[in-house]
């Protein structure tokens, strides 16, 4: 496209039906402990 550049390919909706395996890291276990940020965790489904 000439006027729009889309930065990502994934559609979050596709992950709703298939997601929820629960293997990814709890966000507070990585670094925060005071400020919840969930979107920066890695999906672990492939490595399960």
């Amino acid at each position, binding site marked *: *496209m*000439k*006027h*729009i*550049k*889309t*930065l*990502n*390919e*994934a*559609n*979050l*909706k596709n*992950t*709703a039906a*298939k*997601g*929820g*395996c*629960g*293997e*990814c*890291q*709890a*966000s*507070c*276990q*990585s*670094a*925060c*402990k*005071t*400020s*919840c*940020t*969930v*979107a*920066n*965790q*890695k*999906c*672990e*489904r492939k490595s*399960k």
Partner: protein
Amino acid sequence: MIHKYRLNGYNIVLDVHSGGVHVVDDLTYAMLNYITPPLEEQAPQSFYSDYFSDYSVEEIDECYEELYKLYHNGLLFSEDDYEQFSRQMVSSPIKAMCLHVAHDCNLRCNYCFASTGDFGHGRKLMTAETGKHAIDFLLEHSGDRHNLELDFFGGEPLMNFDVVKQVVEYARSKEKEYNKNFRFTITTNGMLLDDAKIDYINKEMSNVVLSLDGRKQVNDRMRPRVDGSGSYDKIVNRYRQLVGSRGDKDYYVRGTFTKYNLDFSKDVLHINDLGFDQLSVEPVVAKPEEDYALTEQDLPAIFNEYEHLAKEIINRKKKGSGINFFHFMIDLNQGPCAIKRLRGCGCGNEYVAVTPEGDIYPCHQFVGMEEWKMGNIDEGTLDLEKKDYFSKTTIYDKPECKNCWAKFYCSGGCNANNLQYAGSVFHPHELSCELEKKRLECAIMIKAALADQEDQND
């Protein structure tokens, strides 16, 4: 729902419910001011005759066609059909634990939410027996979860390092039998690090969080020792030694910024200049009456700092040196699934904290609030009603979150902060929301700038 903003020369459009992120030109950006779904295949007549009459018909058609294509493909104004999934939320296995091996500390940090280490309940170390019971508890309650996370926390966990080692050894001895993989983290202020502890941590801990607030004067003002002297000189070289011999394993040098260092980007960059590239420097969470607390008046200064930091991270990346800043980490393609994002942090449901006395709380920040105690490891008790309560704290249970553009990134914020500063787990702490939204805008902008850079290099 979309969220659009301009930052650092980029026009950015986030389609909230698909997660699509688009960088658009000025005319396309302006068109979005006048478009609401459902979109027609042809641009509104007013675009030609009124709003964009300075542009040619071809230009208007081109831009609109591209917008319509995104809309048609479900990447613009996509519908919110997630609520059905949030209603399916059930109690999860417990697979992550914050183990408070020491309610004691050798620093007297002014902003400590743990009341300088003892959480207001007296200085105490966990026994190895209680630590092992905590492992048994995780094994018993983790169902089919393979990866179990355990963070050695305090107070200062190195003050009880023998127990840390015994707990690790005990957990490792159970991994095969139970088909589990323990991932250990330790969060330390570094004061008691020595060669042996560094070797042990680098061997056994999959992540280590090293506390440092930044520049010496900033760190030492808020993180003094018991005698009032600073901690910076003692810990920086130890951190270098630890990180230098750690290989590829995860670590974070983690700091806190307060009203005293609203120029905190200097602290982030200082830590990077010390040789660390995995960083997290986070806003202090404190009662508004504290001198060092961040307040609404500080937001413009903090926003400027985040923008400045984002631009500097881009500059350093272009020069080949990276900073992985925790709050700007975002993977637009392979991030967590929608279910994880709906559920949020998981405190009280899949994540709990355990005190030296064996008491179970929803998370480390709830420790000491008697009314939120969930049971006791040594007594084998667990309040399933409370667990169920926390399993229903999704973003669709939080009225302010439901219609917020950032909901799939912060996932409803920190439940403990919400309770302490907004009065309820179900109402987000507004100041935290504002900071989170700004960080997200910066994080996405960094992606746009780096993609731009790649295009230029092609």
